[in-house]
């Protein structure tokens, strides 16, 4: 398989008054096309900064991110980014929120509508097309965000703890939904989380980050798919992996 995203020596420093705060130092990562990579790390380890850099939202202090061999200098439509917090437009109803990326790319109204309705159905929000975001529950808003991210048919999905704020049951549901939507789509996913179980359940490969983006562990996850969270939890293979990740996280904090 070919390398789609290539991150070399990425460093990001934020300026506060007269001091620079290093959020990420010398971060390297190669992502194969069509793979599902989870980045596992404690909060404050620079995960979100890394994704912001990958998406092109912010520019690195040094280092490069190349996508299909060309450097990323700003946001691009092939890469979709689902942030931690909801960024749905509160004045747009569900359908018009989902249509937004297509509106910006200039798709005709009829096509936009058909595609949005299709995605609304796929994320299980039929009947809520005319609701405004604040009239929806947290889980439903996440579904809308998911649909909005998928509407432009992106090649690559960047996700920053997308289900972090949800209750455990809902998170399991949405994880299953994400896997269902991802399977056979050929899309590449970089998924950031602090939850070991989530990382193992979703990823083909788990990268554990320590402080300031130091790579502590990079490991293929060979658990068979489809993965059922309830069965997985008692499997010896999974338990061993879980222990390995816990150990790696502890090492990373030092």
């Amino acid at each position, binding site marked *: 398989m070919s390398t789609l995203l290539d991150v070399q020596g990425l460093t990001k420093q934020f300026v506060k008054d007269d001091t620079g705060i290093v959020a990420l130092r010398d971060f390297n990562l190669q992502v194969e096309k069509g793979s599902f990579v989870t980045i596992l790390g404690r909060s404050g380890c620079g995960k979100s900064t890394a994704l912001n850099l990958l998406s092109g*939202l912010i520019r690195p202090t040094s280092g490069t991110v190349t996508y299909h061999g060309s450097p990323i200098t700003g*946001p691009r439509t092939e890469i979709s*980014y689902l*942030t931690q917090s909801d960024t749905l437009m509160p*004045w*747009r109803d569900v359908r018009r929120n989902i249509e937004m*990326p297509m509106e910006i*790319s200039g798709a005709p109204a009829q096509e936009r509508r058909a595609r949005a309705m299709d995605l609304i159905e796929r994320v*299980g*929000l039929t009947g809520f097309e005319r609701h405004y975001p604040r009239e929806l529950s947290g889980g439903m808003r996440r579904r809308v965000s998911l649909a909005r991210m998928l509407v432009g048919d992106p090649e690559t999905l960047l996700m920053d703890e997308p289900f972090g704020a949800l209750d455990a049951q809902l998170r399991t549901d949405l994880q299953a939904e994400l896997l269902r939507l991802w399977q056979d789509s050929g899309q590449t996913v970089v998924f950031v989380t602090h939850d070991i179980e989530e990382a193992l359940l979703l990823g083909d490969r788990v990268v554990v980050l320590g402080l300031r983006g130091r790579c502590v562990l990079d490991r293929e996850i060979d658990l068979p798919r489809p993965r059922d969270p309830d069965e997985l939890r008692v499997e010896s293979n999974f338990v061993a992996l879980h222990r390995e990740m816990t150990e790696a996280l502890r090492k990373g904090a030092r």
Partner: protein
Amino acid sequence: MSTMTESPKTDSAGRADVVALQRSWWERNGRTTSIWSARIALIAGLIAVWQLAAGRIFDPSFTSRPSDIWTRLVEWNADGTLWMHSWITLQEVVYGYALGSAGGALLGFVLTSLPTVYRVLDPFIMALYAIPKVALAPLFIVWFGIEMDMKILLAAVTVFFLVFLNTAAGVREVDRGLIDAVRLMGGGPRDIALKVVLPASMTGMLTGLKVAIPYALIGAVIGELVASNRGLGYLISNSAAQFDTAGVFATLVVLSVIAAILNFLVGLLDHRVSRWKPAEART
């Protein structure tokens, strides 16, 4: 108006439990009805007390009395005085309001998109804002004469700052995350301005528009009080000069009716633009 204040309850598949409610007329309209009844009772009570007290407790040559005010309004209506003067003032208010709010909103958007220019201009804008607009009236007479132009501009200047400051505040409070979201969709500055900043700053702009209504009236009436031979401001000073308190009060009634109508119109606009907001956040 939507009465939904909570998120709909959903089952795991994301379908809402939508239940048809059987609500009686009173359950649906009872609150509005009782509030309006209380308002009417309050104003009726005040008028009754005023009517009874005038001549017994107060001297009616100072306080007039509701029946005299009504008689005066009927008289003015019959001889056309009321409509002639009200029409003049209404034009000044509406033109001044439109001019001031259009200028304020436009400049609010333009200047906030040029942060450096805004920072340079900020202290000067605040200094100009702090000038009592009444103090400008004599200058405006010199510049624009004592015709309607001067009153329109006086109203416009007053309205301008309020709409400008509120719009600018609204633009500056736009959620950074929403702007980033549009950038991620491949949107340029134009998309950001039209699809995020404009709708997000509507709340601030509408606040400015609402607050500015009485100031448009103040601007126009002050202009008329200072120098004029027409308009409601002139009618007030003329009536007062003749010690006609009923006339003064009658004019004040007309002014408050005009203010109420303008408030109502901006309220309609607000309601149309703020449909997405929670019911309790609307006014």
